[in-house]
């Protein structure tokens, strides 16, 4: 699957200019609210007609304003999971799931029959319920299933977890990963959460005030993201488990990391996400501290925050990029500068099996 987008959209005081193409897997559209992410997925889904431009999937043109071409949304076979689930209140869960079956034939598109989708999303017990009796997390799983069963060539997800609390998010994320890994449907995923993007995305498109400011693989792009919980991503493998201390040791390019015991077997690939605010910088190898993880690296760049009080320090740890958020005072006190060798003290790591 390849998605090509090259559009301009003007709406009152807002201008969106987006040009990117995406590879298989999950493409994250990342940016703050108001950056134009939702408008962009609406354009791909056919809910909004762009002022100018072209959208194509696998070479098949969905929109081309120059040629006056606009494929209406019901003929695009582009699934859409909305932030507010939008289940049909007058239909049972089962009939919500099967809604798309009335209109599409399962030719070529990914995903399978009802049974396999029910299994993928663990929604068997919900089939005979009515949508208004479901929790927020259950609703979103049904919405994902409903979109899948319409046999989409591409699935759009517009902040599907935004209306859920932390616990419900944790409940849904694994299903979206399964979707990526098992169902083989390419996904365009809108989010303003770095953690979600780090966990799910293959490719990241960063939108800032209506413009694409960066596109590329998640490991390269995410450290550039300007966000409250920015951070670095490390691809690692499980080296061994330390049962006595309930720890797992990971091996990565940057060095070994000790983390709370993971359920993954030895050798399993794991993606670790380290928030900038969880990283401290030390000029000398720190001794006698509680933090277990200290990685050696070199400062790649220092970006002061907008108000000048803090700075994001990018660290090159043997090729892997980490981020540390420190105060401007620390930058001055330690005379931090690009190229300087330092030690990153990591307070906590979040993970993701990949």
């Amino acid at each position, binding site marked *: 699957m390849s998605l090509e987008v090259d559009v301009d959209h003007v709406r009152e005081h807002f201008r969106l200019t987006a040009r990117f193409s995406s590879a298989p897997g999950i493409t994250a559209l990342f940016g703050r609210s108001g950056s134009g992410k939702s408008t962009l997925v609406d354009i791909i889904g056919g809910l909004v007609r762009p002022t100018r431009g072209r959208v194509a999937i696998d070479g098949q043109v969905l929109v081309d304003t120059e040629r006056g071409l606009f494929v209406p949304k019901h003929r695009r076979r582009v699934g859409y999971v909305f932030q507010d689930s939008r289940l049909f209140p007058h239909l049972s869960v089962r009939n919500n799931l099967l809604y798309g079956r*009335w209109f599409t034939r399962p030719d070529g598109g990914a995903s399978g029959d009802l049974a396999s989708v029910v299994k993928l999303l663990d929604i068997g017990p919900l089939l005979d319920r009515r949508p208004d009796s479901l929790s927020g997390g259950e609703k979103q799983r049904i919405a994902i299933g409903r979109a899948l069963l319409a046999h989409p060539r591409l699935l759009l997800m517009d902040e599907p977890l935004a209306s859920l609390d932390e616990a419900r998010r944790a409940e849904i994320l694994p299903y979206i990963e399964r979707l990526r890994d098992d169902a083989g449907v390419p996904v365009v995923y809108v989010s303003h959460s770095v953690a979600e993007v780090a966990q799910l995305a293959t490719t990241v498109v960063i939108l800032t005030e209506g413009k694409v400011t960066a596109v590329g693989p998640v490991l390269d792009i995410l450290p550039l993201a300007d966000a409250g919980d920015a951070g670095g991503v490390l691809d690692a493998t499980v080296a061994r488990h330390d049962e006595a201390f309930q720890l797992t040791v990971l091996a990565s390019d940057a060095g070994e990391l000790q983390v709370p015991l993971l359920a993954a077997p030895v050798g399993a690939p794991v993606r670790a996400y380290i928030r900038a605010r969880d990283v401290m910088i030390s000029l000398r190898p720190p001794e006698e501290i509680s933090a277990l993880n200290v990685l050696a690296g070199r400062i790649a760049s220092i970006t002061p925050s907008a108000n000048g009080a803090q700075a994001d320090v990018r660290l090159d740890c043997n090729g892997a990029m980490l981020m540390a958020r420190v105060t401007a005072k620390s930058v001055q006190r330690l005379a931090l500068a690009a190229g300087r060798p330092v030690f990153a003290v990591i307070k906590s790591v979040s993970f993701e099996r990949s």
Partner: protein
Amino acid sequence: MTAEEWTAVRLSLLVATTATAASLPLGIAVAWLLARGRFWGKSLVDTLVHLPLIMPPVVTGYLLLLTFGRRTPVGAFLADELGIVFSFRWTGAALACAVMGFPLLVRAVRLSIEAVDARLEAAAGTLGANPLWVFATVTLPLSLPGVIAGAILCFAKAMGEFGATITFVSNIPGETQTLPSLIYTLTQVPGGDAGALRLTLISIALSMLALLGSELLARRIGVRRTAVA
């Protein structure tokens, strides 16, 4: 009750049912156009639909007579080509009732279509449903209480319609003498009071039954139709 009274009650029910059934599909279509459509002349259509509500019924009846009378071009065409005659027939009474009930029907249906969340319709579109299917499977089921309310209003209006009917198709016993027409006739003749009162009671009973029926239906559908966040 006299045979004449029975005939009037039966005729009224036939006229009102026909009028409602005939205006329902067109009424839903017009309501949908007014609720969701964006086209040139929309306010003109809106005004035309509401005209019978505002004009004196006698004027509406007279306009119908001028349009569909046996010797007018439209009336002659319908009679000669399609075999449909409206003037001084019960079908004409049904037409007059349909025209008079139409604004009430459209208004109720339009309001309930406007209340349907357009985001659900967009979602149905992304699942492959073309606009007609979206209407049939999402919009219409969700606006059903309004459709029922509109149909009941239209039926009730048709049961009570007097001015336009008597102007357009007169007051012919057994053909166009509906319940209100007969009540009017009975009040004009000596000794007709008892009959007028009987019919008045029947009229009240029928209205209440219709209202009760619509309540029950709307409640049954309402249970299935709670909005989802």
